[in-house]
């Protein structure tokens, strides 16, 4: 009973906080719009010219691998483009000369090493002067890919760095301007040939993918926010005051857990409804499945919040650890760049990220799946929640 009062109080505080509300509800929607439109786009009905493209990749680079494997050799371009891997630029030039290939792409060493700063190194595109059509198609594919990677990483970075702090209205304003600039850049780029195939084997649109990805990522922030809400109560002595009331420690902890859970559920529900109404995102045929995953994911997130509340000493550390943690989890959990980009070893590591389980389940549900297939993610998420809330409660009760 007392825990419900505490939970409701926490929910109200979080929900009524205007900054928190925009960060947690408006931002994911805005980002979905940006990232989703960058990714979606139609492979036109018109038939494209058959193209043979030679690719030289200097050194190794994840983005490079991804580009070759999932874009050039990807499903959508498969019918038109055949890829030939070439050792050197010299060979490439001579192949073009001999008209063995129509165009050549040279991926520089460490293509994506400056991605942190929103940059990709320049790629050389060599075209047979007589094959202009094929050349411009390859140019579009390449341009679109580069734009997409940069926008994704930049806007995600902007939001992540800023969400970690509380913002003043002016900062919020600046942030919106930053975001709309990225959006503008995108609009200017000629996003004709963006294709959907990159998103694993499933037939989900970019908008769908990023709606799911943003839901998974932004719910993740509740780990940090929930932990901080607890740490705040400890720092401002309201926790001491709570302990002076005739309320069991366990009820207080349950209250904190439930308050976070309420917020997660409302946040997700609003996001689901708004993305559906605004962007016509199709969350799949079976809404009960979506809700079940969302619920288990919320339990995982709220449990982890209690765990971190027990682990971290003050709210500054929580900000640092939380900001970094969300970035890492979003990255390895596929919220920034699709999971398919990852080498297999990293895909295994991704299993520790609760958002990965949520995201891949949402995608599965969108493309149609059975309850049986969802059993594993549902269990994993539930266990993450229960185990972490148990450990957290046990540690906090000891204090």
């Amino acid at each position, binding site marked *: 009973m007392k825990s419900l009062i505490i939970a409701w109080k926490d929910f*109200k505080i979080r929900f009524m906080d205007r900054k928190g509300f925009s960060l947690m509800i408006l931002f994911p929607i805005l980002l979905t719009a940006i990232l989703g439109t960058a990714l979606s786009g139609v492979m036109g009905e018109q038939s494209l010219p058959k193209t043979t493209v030679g690719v030289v990749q200097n050194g190794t680079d994840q983005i490079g691998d991804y580009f070759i494997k999932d874009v050039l050799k990807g499903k959508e371009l498969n019918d038109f483009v055949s890829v030939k891997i070439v050792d050197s630029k010299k060979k490439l030039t001579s192949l073009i000369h001999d008209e063995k290939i129509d165009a050549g792409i040279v991926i520089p060493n460490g293509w994506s090493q400056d991605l942190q700063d929103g940059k990709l190194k320049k790629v050389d595109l060599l075209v047979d002067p007589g094959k202009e059509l094929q050349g411009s198609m390859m140019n579009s594919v390449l341009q679109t890919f580069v734009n997409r990677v940069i926008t994704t990483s930049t806007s995600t970075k902007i939001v992540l760095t800023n969400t970690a702090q509380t913002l003043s209205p002016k900062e919020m304003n600046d942030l919106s301007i930053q975001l709309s600039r990225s959006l503008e850049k995108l609009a200017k780029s000629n996003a004709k040939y963006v294709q959907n195939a990159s998103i694993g084997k499933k037939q989900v649109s970019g908008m769908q993918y990023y709606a799911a990805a943003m839901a998974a990522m932004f719910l993740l922030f509740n780990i940090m926010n929930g932990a901080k809400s607890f740490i705040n109560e400890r720092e401002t002595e309201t926790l001491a005051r709570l302990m002076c009331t005739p309320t069991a420690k366990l009820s207080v902890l349950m209250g904190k857990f439930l308050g976070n859970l309420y917020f997660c559920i409302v946040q997700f529900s609003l996001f689901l409804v708004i993305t559906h109404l605004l962007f016509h995102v199709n969350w799949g045929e079976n809404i009960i499945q979506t809700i079940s995953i969302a619920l288990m994911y919320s339990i995982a997130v709220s449990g982890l919040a209690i765990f971190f509340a027990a682990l971290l000493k003050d709210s500054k550390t929580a900000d640092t650890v939380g900001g970094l943690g969300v970035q890492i989890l979003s990255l390895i959990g596929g919220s920034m760049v699709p999971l398919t980009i990852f080498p297999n070893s990293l895909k295994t590591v991704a299993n520790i990220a609760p958002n990965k389980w949520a995201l891949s389940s949402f995608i599965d549900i969108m493309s149609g799946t059975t309850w049986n297939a969802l059993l594993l993610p549902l269990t994993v998420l539930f266990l993450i929640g229960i185990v972490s809330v148990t450990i957290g409660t046990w540690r906090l009760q000891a204090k």
Partner: protein
Amino acid sequence: MLEVNHLRKSFGKTEVVKGVTFTVDKGEAFGLLGPNGAGKSTTISMICGLLPYDSGEIKVDGFSVKEHQMEIKRKIGVVPQDIALYPTMSAHDNLIFWGKMYGLSGKQVVKKANEVLEFVGLLDRGKDKIETFSGGMKRRINIGAALMHQPELLIMDEPTVGIDPQSRNHILETVKELNKQGMTIIYTSHYMEEVEFLCKRIGIIDHGEVIAVGTKDDLVKRLSGGTVVKMEVNHFQNRLVEELNTLPLVEKVMVNDDKTELEILVSSGHQALGELVSTAIKNFIEVSSIKVQEPNLETLFLQLTGRSLRD
């Protein structure tokens, strides 16, 4: 109402409460006077059941704090030293929340919140968020939150730190009124005047020990005839202090920070005046004023500890 017996508490190796003993009767206002770090808050935390104690015993209404935590928590209202409220919630919502945590509900809790707001004089600001309040108003709501469940025992930990005189007077009047209505009150402070104004009985605590308990008059009587003489000088030399210390009537000499005033503890004030002034003159120091202070708790504290209550 409250019995504290040989209470002890250590943090690590340092013992901060060293055998504190005192009792508070029903309906009484008891003052706990002591300087920073004396152990007031620690003692209070143990009474409220926030902090376990190492040894000794605390009984509220005959119940041991260790065994009957929940019953005792219902009887006690605590005003913490820091503002323990939710800044983004309104004053009204804060009061309602704390009321509910004490088991109030429905119409009852809303009615009580309005009563409390009126009592602390902030009924018109009830809908405003705590973060928009001045320091003094926050303090008043901080007290109000402890009154929601009409506690039998109200424990206040320095409820007037850092506020303007007007709010302070308002708070003191409020507390006095509560005591008149029959509420038992424990009031900690390092302001002698507050404790003297509110409390019949006073305990003086220092370094984790209660060094004196009694009514104000009892305590002042314990001054062994000692008096404090305040002497203002227009310049200062260390030699003066040295010479004053050699005088037979002088027990202790203290100099304030800007070296314009000396506080001299003497065994007999009026007799010493002449000698004090002539010593100053001998050292070519001009005395701009000199007065004998009425014996009060501050004098007692000075005599007992050799330090003043506040820096």
